[in-house]
């Protein structure tokens, strides 16, 4: 009797543990690489579209000589800009490592580029939340 109960509960426990693990791994991976949080849960097309959309916005922002914000404790808009940029995860880290995004916002296109990168990060935050909702079963 005890053995049959153990057999029934073991797979259920494993599934719960896997879901709990996925609820941590998917958002973390999604932050590092946009769309990867969906791909690891076998939502390949959604993940690919998110990667292309967020990635293209960020790269276009860089190519438009947008400015990337670093961690700072100064002006509130600079802090918000940093939070937005940080959402891009791996792309933000690589850009900082390569010393990119150092342009001064001297003309309109560079300003658009700066906003593109901030919005790419903010959109990735939404994608991370979506990956989490899929992981906990709130969304298909």
């Amino acid at each position, binding site marked *: 009797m005890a053995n049959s109960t153990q057999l029934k509960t073991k797979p259920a426990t494993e599934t719960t543990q896997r879901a709990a693990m996925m609820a941590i791994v998917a958002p973390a991976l999604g932050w590092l690489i946009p769309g990867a949080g969906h791909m690891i849960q076998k939502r390949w097309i*959604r993940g690919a*579209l*998110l990667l292309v*959309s*967020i990635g*293209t*916005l960020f790269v*276009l922002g860089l*190519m*438009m*000589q947008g400015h990337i914000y670093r961690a700072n404790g100064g002006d509130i808009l600079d802090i918000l800009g940093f939070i937005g940029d940080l959402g891009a995860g791996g792309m933000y880290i690589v850009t900082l490592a390569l010393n990119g995004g150092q342009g001064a916002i001297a003309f*309109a*296109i560079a300003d*658009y580029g700066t906003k*593109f990168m901030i*919005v790419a990060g903010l*959109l990735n935050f*939404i*994608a991370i*939340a*979506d990956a989490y909702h899929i992981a906990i079963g709130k*969304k*298909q």
Partner: protein
Amino acid sequence: MTVQLTHFSAAFVFALFASIVFGITHRETTRDMIRYGLYCFGMFLGGVLVAGWAMWLIRR
């Protein structure tokens, strides 16, 4: 390598990619995702056009 976009093309690119992400993340089924993405895209570009014409009228 630098890219020079006009105001409208920048708005178009922005609307396109933001709408894709909104569509995927805000709806459950594929059909609803496409419909919501198209709705967002229309609202983004429509907003740009309306705001543009409003500014043109204010300038007069």
